[in-house]
């Protein structure tokens, strides 16, 4: 498959076709210890926070870059109107659980959206990962890593002269 055909097929893929199952995703419950979240973030770029494993209701997301706000000392935070939510993530503010530091407004996408929809959303909001949801339930995720893997897989399956 040449690059053009691969891209065309890639763009029309449904998110549900390539998203991983929740049991392979970095997920913690809202009451998880913040130190466990940090341990996960040593090897992952984000961690999803759900209310509980049964309902999988999405509470928020903790991204790699959020660790900066978590680890910074109080004097590095600016306590101004419109800036307090960031400083509240600091470990020194007493944040101890996953829900204390999670961004409660993660970007989401529906299962039946296409890869092109996901890419557009990622570009528009400079996001590297989107939560795939069914109502309020987290059912999967789409990240740049998954998209790259899938695109390369398509090229290889088609036998293209892909040069890494």
């Amino acid at each position, binding site marked *: 498959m040449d690059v053009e055909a691969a891209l065309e097929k890639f763009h029309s893929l449904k998110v549900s076709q390539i998203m991983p199952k929740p049991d392979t995703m970095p997920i913690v419950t809202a009451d998880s210890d913040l130190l466990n979240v940090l341990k996960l973030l040593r090897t992952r770029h984000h961690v999803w926070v759900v209310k509980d494993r049964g309902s999988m209701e999405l509470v928020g997301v903790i991204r790699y870059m959020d660790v900066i706000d978590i680890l910074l000392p*109080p*004097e590095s*935070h*600016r*306590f*101004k*109107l*419109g*800036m*307090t*939510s960031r*400083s*509240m993530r*600091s470990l*020194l*503010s*007493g*944040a*101890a659980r996953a829900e*204390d530091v999670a*961004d*409660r*407004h*993660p*970007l*989401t996408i529906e299962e039946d959206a296409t890869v092109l929809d996901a890419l*557009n959303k990622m570009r*528009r*909001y*400079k*996001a590297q990962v989107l939560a795939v949801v069914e109502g309020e339930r987290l059912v999967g995720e789409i990240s740049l890593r998954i998209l790259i893997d899938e695109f390369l897989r398509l090229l290889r399956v088609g036998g293209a002269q892909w040069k890494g």
Partner: protein
Amino acid sequence: MEGVAWLLATIGIALILAKISDSIIERFELPGVLGELIMGMILGNLVYFGYVAPDYLPIVSGMGYESVLNQIAEFLAKLGIIFLLFLGALDTDIEQLKKTGVTATVSTILGVSVPLLLGWWALMAMGYPSREAFAGGVLLTATSIGLTVRVMMDLGVLRSEVGAASLSASVMDDFLGIALVIFAVGTGGLFELSIKIVAFFIITGVLGWYFIDHYIRFAERLHVEKGILGMAIGMMFLFAALAEGWFVAAIEGAFMMGLILSKLPEGKRIMEDVRAIGYGLLIPFFFVHTGAMLNLKVFENADAITLAAVLSVIAIVGKIVGRGFGAWITAWGRGRDFLFTRKNFWMSLQMGIGSVPRTEVALVDLMVAIHGGAIPPGDAPKFIAATLIFITVSVLITPPLLKWAFKEEIEKAKAEKAAQKVGRIQETKEKIKELKGSE
């Protein structure tokens, strides 16, 4: 240089000095806004005392300084207020606020009502007209959450019961402080004003709340550079225009749009851009401009000092008593048995003291009240001076008061740390003994 060049130079100087003074004041663990106000005061008084001609430093406005350049500076400062409130609302977590408990709610209501009514009554007693006295009361209602958060964080009590309730109550204080100013500047009878308020909330709140999703989806489909940001700010200005037209308070529209957008992840994503525009240009300029409005000649007579003293006392006592009593009567949801306990008293006192500092919203309310005519031009210098003084007093007095109120908790935490240290030393000694024994 021509006029525009002097205005550009003034904006440049104001921004550079604002950021430097912000940084210096923050090093003393005080709100950076104080530095920006002081810088503005210095610049403004260079003009008032005749050291610099007003055309060369068009930072002040009103009070006889009515050139086009002065008006542009004033307009930029107004944009700063609008962006400050828009950003403040965008940063709000409505879902968290919905979980606010009874203690925070009751203490907010009393914490706002007591200083408002005391201020209103005191200014009336001093001979100010009712509308102006009410505006003076409104200035005392909002709490600056930033300083309280910082001090509580330093003391390690932010996530305590008192800390959590203080945070919720302070956010609600701001809501009320911003809403109440409508009654100070709104024109027409109470009935007409009430109808306008209901209509405003239906148009902006209800419709906005339900249609914002579609509006953002539409903005997404435009596929233009910063399309969502531009469309969001555009709608914010329309809301602000409606509020300015109806209540002479554009901030209400900006705040409402921020709240509506804050419910969407897409809305939260524009926050960084709004922050860049706000804190990179307009908001520091607003604070410098506000500082510049303080003409030190106002202290030539005792009126401003008397007003400052009255407002400072009410700002401190009114909040401690109002919010503290509000927390006390709820007994923190622990029933009647807890009501007359020592712990209830101290927790409520801590809650009251945490609400003392005022900064941004008091300044916003002040400027809205002046521009809206609730505070007449003749009295504006006095109110500016008094507000800057009570803000300074409130932010200086809060940290030591909070440390005193939390002294038991701090000592307990120190004792726990010391015990842990002793435990660790003991453990190490035992390990060394074991090692020596095994050798």
